[in-house]
Each structure stands twice: as structure tokens, then as C-alpha cells.
């Protein structure tokens, strides 16, 4: 699955917010790769991608944030809600490869307590229930 989301100015122009989401599967776990910026305009697309995984029956999801250059509080809210939904289904969301700034935001907002940042996808996979 590949979803490109842009702001009002469209995906062809450089100045609209763009995030690219791709999903693949590894050993029964959905890996969602988030490339670009997650802000108020693109967070709904991330929420939709995670919702689609839940709707498809996934309970364990890894979010690969290595290429995520910005994650704002709107994006944080999406992660927290997705994690709670997956946990109530017996699974979890695990974060992989977050940049230092994203890790710092997770830490200072306390989100890290329920959503720790793992170094890479392998570490995130190992941490899933």
C-alpha cells in the first residue's frame, strides 16, 4: 500500500506537507514505514493507515520512524490512540528508528512510558507481545 498525502497545494509542489506511508508484513506483523512530516495536515492519513491495519485484523504493528523528519503533537495523539486500540485487542504498537528529536518529544511528553522508542525494526519486533 502506498499513500501520498499533500497539503492544499498538491503533491507536485514542494511546499505542501507531504508524508509517504508504506506497509509491508514481516512474520505476521504489519510494518508501517512513515517517511516525511507528520503534522496536523498529514496525521489523519497516518491514523487512516493504522485504522486500516486494525480493520484488517492486525493486532501487532511496528511503526518505522527512521525517515520521519517531524512528528508533532497531532501525530503523537495518533500513535497513542492506535497503541491503545491495538493493546485492547491483545497486541501493541512498537516504534522503531525514531530520530533524536522525536525520541525527546516522546520522553518529555511522557508518551515514552507506554510507547518506548526502539532502535530499529528488529528491536521493535522483539518487544511486541
Amino acid at each position: 500500500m502506498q499513500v501520498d498525502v499533500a497539503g492544499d497545494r498538491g503533491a507536485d509542489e514542494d511546499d505542501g506537507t507531504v508524508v509517504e506511508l508504506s506497509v509491508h508484513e514481516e512474520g505476521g506483523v504489519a510494518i508501517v514505514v512513515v517517511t516525511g512530516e507528520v503534522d496536523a495536515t498529514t496525521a489523519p492519513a497516518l491514523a487512516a493507515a493504522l485504522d486500516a491495519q486494525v480493520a484488517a485484523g492486525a493486532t501487532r504493528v511496528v511503526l518505522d520512524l527512521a525517515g520521519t523528519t517531524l512528528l508533532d503533537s497531532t501525530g503523537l495523539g495518533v500513535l497513542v490512540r492506535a497503541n491503545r486500540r491495538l493493546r485492547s485487542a491483545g497486541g501493541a504498537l512498537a516504534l522503531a528508528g525514531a530520530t533524536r528529536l522525536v525520541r525527546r518529544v516522546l520522553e518529555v511528553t511522557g508518551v515514552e512510558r507506554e510507547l518506548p522508542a526502539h532502535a530499529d525494526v528488529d528491536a521493535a519486533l522483539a518487544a511486541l507481545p
Partner: protein
Amino acid sequence: MNRSLSIEVPASGSYLRLVRMLVTAFAAEAAGVDVEEAARVRLAVSEACVAVLEALPSRPHTDAVHVGARVEPDCIDLEVRTAAPSPVAERDLAVVRALADDVEVRTDGADQVVRVRLRLGVGGRAGVDV
């Protein structure tokens, strides 16, 4: 030398990326911030804008958001303001408070204002190396 930046955009999330780009480019040009500091400036101005946008009544509205940035010898001051009837909510400021060295929220006439001070070269009060 250009040490301050003033921009005005429509009060819409669609302009967040443009604001981030302009403010980050200004910070790099005027203060010579490194990549790590630029990322902090970029997220701080974006979060301040979102907090101010949240204070606006639900759409449709045609308000503008003013964003200012000023480079001082050891810091960058950001100011985001818009005419909104209700003050900026504290819950919308958690991330920007975590990133910044000082955050001031006030009502100035008809405007709701968020001022953010980021000290340069120290990585903010929580430190960059986490």
C-alpha cells in the same frame, strides 16, 4: 543583516509546512543553527502555530496567523499570534514547553499570542542528547 522575519499566512494547517520552511531557513541564515537545532526550531514553530490555530473557532474562518522570528545573540525568539476569542489552551503547549527554554502565553488586545524562546547551542533545558 536581516535578523528578524515576519510572515503572515491564512489560519490553516495547510500553511504549516511553509511556515516551518521559512522560519528554519531564516534560523539557518541569520543564526547559523546546526541541523539538530534547526529541527528543534522547526518543531517549536509548528507546535506554536497549531496551538494558536486550536484557539480559533471551528471553520470556516478567514483569519490570518502572524509568525515572527528574531535572532538575538544567544537565542531565537518566535512569536505566533492571531485574533481569537479564547486563549491558547495549556494542553496544546506541552510539546513546545518541552522544546523551549521559555514560553509565554498572553492576550494582547484581540490577539492571542504565544512567544517561544529557544537558546542556541545548549539544546534547550532538557538537552538534545537523550
